[in-house]
């Protein structure tokens, strides 16, 4: 028994040290991440004003706002989600309803998960080759296509996951009433999973609204307000990039305002997605 004393105290010491390390690591991480958000809020609030939403981007040294990047981001994000939603929901439905144990579904599932975390700049290269080079010019449509490709795997994955949680008894009840399979899926499975699918769409919007890299080679940027998506289009993330890297203090101030807008939007979208998911019957 006495021989165990030093061993026991060594084990207790190791436990105490690792406990301290874990506390320190967690607190340090929270501190750094709080600092990131704090800096964004403090510097962003300072340059946030009505002009941000009503005026277009200024030349260096001039006065202006972020109207054209905000509208460009809204248009491209909206178009992207509108395009990715039907395809993503149908693909997720295939994985959950038709192909549950099929080999093809396994392959799709695997590749979809890979696409989910693929570097977004690669998507930008792809859309450049697919849409920008053949057309001969950068455009908002190309930017929207790049964003749609990033949103797609998010929608597929969440749709499949929530459909799988719909109880089999509901499906059987539908089939037993004589409904064809597609009717059962549309009127029963989708309706039961609606909250979860909506969550997936919100997460997809959150994911693409901060994406910068895929827009660099597709929608490029624009100093002016554009009336459609068929020309180079400004977006908030690209405008932030351009302004933050510039040597002009007033451009940098605009970049911080944009950073605050994007962070707030992304966090709000994520929180509301969680609230919807929490309230859904699943």
């Amino acid at each position, binding site marked *: 028994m006495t021989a165990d004393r030093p061993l026991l105290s060594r*084990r207790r010491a190791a436990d105490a040290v*690792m*406990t301290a*390390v874990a506390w320190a690591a*967690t607190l*340090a*991480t*929270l501190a750094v*991440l709080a600092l*990131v*958000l704090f*800096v964004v809020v403090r510097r962003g609030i300072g340059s946030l004003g009505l002009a941000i939403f009503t005026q277009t981007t200024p030349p260096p040294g001039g006065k202006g706002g972020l109207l054209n990047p905000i509208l460009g981001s809204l248009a491209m994000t909206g178009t992207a989600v509108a395009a990715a939603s*039907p*395809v993503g929901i*149908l*693909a997720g*439905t295939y*994985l959950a309803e*038709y*192909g549950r144990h099929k080999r093809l579904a396994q*392959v*799709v599932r695997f590749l*979809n998960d890979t696409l989910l*975390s*693929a*570097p977004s*700049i*690669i998507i*930008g*290269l*792809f859309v450049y*080759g697919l849409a920008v080079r053949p057309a001969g010019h950068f455009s908002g449509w190309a930017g929207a296509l790049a964003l749609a490709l990033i949103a*797609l795997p*998010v929608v*597929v*994955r969440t749709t499949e996951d929530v459909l799988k949680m719909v109880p089999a008894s509901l499906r059987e009840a539908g089939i037993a*009433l004589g*409904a*064809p*399979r*597609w*009717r059962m899926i549309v009127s029963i499975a989708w309706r039961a999973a609606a909250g979860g699918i909506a969550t*997936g769409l919100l997460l997809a919007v959150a994911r693409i*609204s*901060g994406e*910068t*890299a895929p827009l660099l080679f597709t929608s490029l940027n624009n100093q002016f307000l554009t009336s459609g998506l068929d020309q180079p289009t400004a977006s908030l*993330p690209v405008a*932030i990039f351009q302004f*933050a*890297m510039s040597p002009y203090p007033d451009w*940098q101030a605009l*970049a*911080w305002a944009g*950073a605050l807008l*994007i*962070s707030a939007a*992304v966090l709000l979208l994520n929180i509301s*997605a*969680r609230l919807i998911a929490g309230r859904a019957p699943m």
Partner: protein
Amino acid sequence: MGSTRAPARAEPRTLRDAQRTASERGFHSLALASAILVVAALAGIFALLLIGGLPALQRFGWRFLTATSWNPVTGVFGALPPIYGTLVTSAIAMLIGVPTAFSIAFFINELCPHRLRGPLTVGIELLAAVPSIIYGMWGLFILAPFLAAHVEPPLIDLLGPLPLVGALFRGAPFGIGMLTAGVILGIMILPYIAAVARQAIGDVPLLLREAAFAVGATRWEVFRHVLVPYASHGLLGGVMLGLGRALGETMAVTFVIGNAHQVARSLLAPGTTISATLANEFTEAVGDIYMSSLLALGLILFIITFVVLAAARLLLGRTSPDAAA
């Protein structure tokens, strides 16, 4: 629902049945086509990068991977500097991110007061959602000056004179370079790894934990010798997922790496990564071979990340919580 009024008798070829079969078939093929579109997208990415990068790969051969010159004027391109920068910054990020993320998983699962567990988990997942451009800006305006003033000078003074490792810490403290990029990446991927690790550890059966405590193990021993080995697949999957992010991350790096095509031994020196090179040069690339070299770089990045992410998926199975990320 009209279809419920269908007669019970088997009447195969009525108009109604034909309509039903047709609509069912239509819906099925629509869903199937959508699923195939996902595969087509990935195949299309690979094909386009391969076709686009082929001229450069043919012109430079294997030397493309080992040459260090990157000269748009003479049209000679070598990919070693960006590949090197990608690997070095990701290595620094993993050195920072992995131990910290595992410590957080230990904290949340074993040490944290029960009431804090939920908020902390959600908080970490929310932080994984903050766009990378925000981290990049913060790195440029806050972290880089801080490292240049308070961290890099002591590193140079203390470690610079040492043999071997000293070479990593020589030069001027710019604050812009591979070290800063690696630190930013580490902070960025931390929440991803922590979220997966927390879940993997949390999924270990309670029985194992209780058994270990019952034989007198300390909390750290339970974590180290029971939970980590049991959850090793999930933990490794989380690490690979973080590595995949680090390798391909663009904006956070582009702000602070300095964009210099060089293979510098010092971590404090400016460098470049594949993604940063693409972000900076792609729209300005003039000439077919320049463009092709950039696409070949993209192909290399695609292959590396595909392998890493595929490994992550195989290790994780289908239980990771990262759909939110």
